[in-house]
């Protein structure tokens, strides 16, 4: 943390960031629901230069059987980065980081998914990061939520996610890879927009209490932008643009 890279200007005097965005502007986001025929539900997201594909199966039988729970269904999430998702080949074996993100996304989705309706079953979420550029966990979580809705799993609310952070002493929305490396703080937020509840909140870096508050507000603002795009993706697939 703390501006190590001296040549990179994270924020210029006009308030424009290194990739030409304003401080409260997210990257270009595109979400598509469906697309995979063999999965029960699927989604594809492009979040700036992040490209992520999510497939959902279930509810289905649990294998191995001992993992099943007689009271409720279980949610299993695999977050995986393909070898060509980053500049240097990534070993396809699950790394410490991927195992952590799988767990974090699973726990961020659990408050939304109503698994108690399907005891003794499992819902499997497979996330493949095809191209990574900072903020993959947020993009993956947003896409996973769309894929779950596409699979028809009952949910209390959608989960939208977006990161906020601090770079060049300013609170910024949607931290990209450069800002993540050279910036001062990164805070991914998962949010249920209708229930107004936070399901994921991580913070890497140092913020004052005032900055922290502003950062959360900025992040939630970003989540609401993402939510509108999630809604658009699902509406397009199921209702063909015709809002009734």
């Amino acid at each position, binding site marked *: 943390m703390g501006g190590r890279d001296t040549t990179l200007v994270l924020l210029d005097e006009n308030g424009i960031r290194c990739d030409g965005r304003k401080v409260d502007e997210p990257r270009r986001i595109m979400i598509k629901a469906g697309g995979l025929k063999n999965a029960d539900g699927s989604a594809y997201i492009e979040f700036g230069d992040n490209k992520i594909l999510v497939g959902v199966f279930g509810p289905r039988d649990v294998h191995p059987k001992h993992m099943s729970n007689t009271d409720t269904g279980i949610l299993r999430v695999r977050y995986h980065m393909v070898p060509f998702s980053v500049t240097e080949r990534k070993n396809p074996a699950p790394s410490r980081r991927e195992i952590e993100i799988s767990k974090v996304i699973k726990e961020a989705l659990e408050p939304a998914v109503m698994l108690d309706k399907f005891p003794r079953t499992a819902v499997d979420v497979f996330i493949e990061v095809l191209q990574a550029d900072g903020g993959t966990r947020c993009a993956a979580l947003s896409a996973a939520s769309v894929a779950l809705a596409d699979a*028809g799993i009952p949910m*209390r609310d959608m989960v939208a996610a977006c990161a906020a952070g601090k770079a060049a002493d300013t609170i910024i929305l949607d931290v990209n890879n450069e800002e993540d490396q050279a910036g001062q703080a990164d805070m991914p937020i998962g949010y249920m927009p209708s229930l107004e509840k936070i399901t994921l909140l991580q913070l890497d870096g140092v913020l004052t209490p005032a900055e922290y508050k502003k950062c959360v507000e900025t992040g939630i603002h970003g989540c609401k932008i993402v939510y509108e795009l999630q*809604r658009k993706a699902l*509406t397009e697939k199921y209702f063909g643009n015709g809002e009734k």
Partner: protein
Amino acid sequence: MENKRKYVIPGDVITTGPYRPEQNVILDGNKIISTAIGISEIYDDSIKVIPLTGKYIPKIDDLVIGKVISHTSLSWELDINSCYVGFLPAQDVFGRDFSAHADELSSKLKSGDLVAARIANFDRTRDPLVTISDRDLGKIDSGHLVKISPSKVPRLIGKRGTMIQAIEMATGAAITIGQNGWVVVSCETPEGLLKAKNAIQMVDEKAHVANLTDQVKEMLESKGES
């Protein structure tokens, strides 16, 4: 409020007020929230969402089409297109005096056979128990199996069976609809069979379109002329 229909996704607040939540909705404070992608319907005092996607969840008394996967010496297991397997006990077919030594289960139903069955019992703790001892139930000997999304079965039946009647009348086919999204079509003429299958697939694809019954009728009639 009258029967107001709205397209909803999970998390959408359908309305607020003293309504009874039915299928696919939850009550949060006084807000009524959808839990599925679908069409919300408000009746006098209740609200439900007709889902457009999702797997089949067994309900007691549902008619389902099942496929025999395997059997033990005491029971068959049926694939009922759900997250649970249907459990068909041998007594149901052989009667009370069934004996595991004397009766061979595969003599009645082999794996791969299709059966029309009814969900006799189902709760959270056990797999659904199905029965075939009733009128119109049992092994299906002829017909074509068409698979549609289980969430679209109500649409295929239509209001008071109008849709399915329209298809049967126009094609002369006999159609058995399982609530689990499996449909068996049998017809004397190959043209009728093809037309009925097309009509069923059309309902599956265009389930959200209004006035679908008219469109299906139109399709059936136009094909008949050409």
